[in-house]
């Protein structure tokens, strides 16, 4: 490791630093980048430590969404009363990341920025229709989270840009969501495949639905075709089973170090089925599924 270290103390200072810097990596929790630097997988010339930028922290609630600072750790998300109340599926996903030590320091912004196809919080954020606020020195924009992933380890963020806020849609009455993960063991396991489902029902009808997968493609994905098919269908077991089969047919996973394409395909069906069932159950309970 051999880098220059920057630790801006405010958003203004951060954006100024980024404006003049090339060949840098961000340091948030460091659970990924520090290991990659040690193993010489990456050798950045500069490290920009985000941890002193207070504007990037905190979780708050606004009308129909939560504002989540990208520096929120997985533990903060898992334990946040606001997240548990309005975005339980995200707490559920954050609780399954790595180990307590990793969750205590690893951040949701880091989980996004790393752009790992296996990131656990991302499918949960995708089904909550998360918008990402991206800033650079003289520019601020909002993008749907789905549109920022380019490929494994790559986002469409350019130099000078940083994620400054996540806007996560709150779960309301009649809506429910669930996160399901298949890893090699219960703790400290990177997902072999993971899946999140969100739906809104009106009596027995599925009014709206979102399904997201991790680890079945170069980036996290939404299953738009299956979602479209489900809309207007009855929220019942047979429909869920058909949707599960459609999901299995729709994805094109690969063999890699953690699993095989065949296993992922088969598992995808059962994750979608479980996800739909649990989401429905929660939609029929109280708001927030506490």
């Amino acid at each position: 490791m051999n880098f220059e270290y920057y630790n801006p103390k405010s958003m203004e200072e951060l954006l100024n630093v980024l404006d003049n810097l090339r060949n840098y990596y961000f340091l948030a929790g460091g659970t990924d980048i520090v290991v990659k630097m040690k193993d010489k997988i990456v050798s950045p010339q500069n490290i920009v430590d985000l941890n002193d930028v207070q504007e990037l922290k905190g979780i708050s609630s606004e009308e129909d969404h939560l504002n989540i600072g990208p520096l929120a750790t997985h533990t903060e998300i898992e334990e946040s009363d606001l997240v548990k109340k309005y975005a339980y599926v995200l707490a559920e996903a954050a609780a399954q990341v790595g180990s307590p030590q990793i969750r205590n320091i690893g951040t949701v912004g880091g989980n996004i920025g790393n752009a790992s196809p296996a990131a656990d919080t991302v499918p949960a954020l995708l089904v909550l229709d998360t918008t990402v606020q991206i800033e650079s020195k003289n520019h601020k924009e909002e993008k749907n989270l789905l549109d920022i992933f380019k490929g494994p380890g790559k986002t469409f963020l350019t130099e000078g840009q940083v994620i400054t806020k996540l806007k996560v849609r709150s779960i309301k009455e009649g809506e429910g969501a669930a996160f399901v993960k298949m890893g090699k063991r219960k703790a400290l396991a990177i997902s072999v495949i993971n899946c999140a489902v969100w739906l809104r029902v009106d009596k027995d009808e599925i009014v709206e639905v979102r399904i997201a997968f991790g680890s079945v493609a170069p980036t996290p994905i939404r299953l738009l075709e299956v979602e479209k098919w489900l809309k207007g269908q009855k929220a019942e077991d047979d429909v869920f089973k058909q949707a599960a089969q459609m999901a299995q047919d729709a994805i094109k996973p690969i063999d890699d170090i953690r699993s095989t394409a065949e296993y992922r395909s088969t598992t995808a069906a059962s994750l979608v089925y479980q996800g739909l069932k649990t989401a429905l159950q929660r939609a029929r309970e109280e708001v927030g599924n506490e």
Partner: protein
Amino acid sequence: MNKKLIKFTLNDKEYKVEVEPQVLLVDLIREELGLTGTKVGCGEGECGACTVIMDGKTVNSCMVLAVTVDGKKITTIEGLAKGEELHPLQKSFVEEGAVQCGFCTPGMILSSKALLDENPNPTPEEIKKGLSGNLCRCTGYAKIVKAVEKASKELNK
């Protein structure tokens, strides 16, 4: 190389040190400050041997840059005993045979301490979850879980 001055509390003692930004917390603790109770196992956050408590939360000190602990409060295994008197967790680990080769023990005990500080009466399931970031290749974990239960009773007396 540009050294940075950092101030932090380690086991209730104030430290002011100059560190290069590349130095890992575990290396600062072990090499510079000479506290070798914190171990390095895998070096990538899988084993938890390097676990320390930072501002009340456990972290893997092999993945933390020392420069980032400026202003923070760190506890290592050396900070638990009071002089000659062992911490209840240390005592119960010894008594229950939860220490075999001992390499994972400092990390196990610190994860247990962070758990008991937040949740004084954990169930065996909660203990297992609390220790899920620490690997032990000797004990099979049963004795460790028992030791944590015993210490929790002792601490609640």
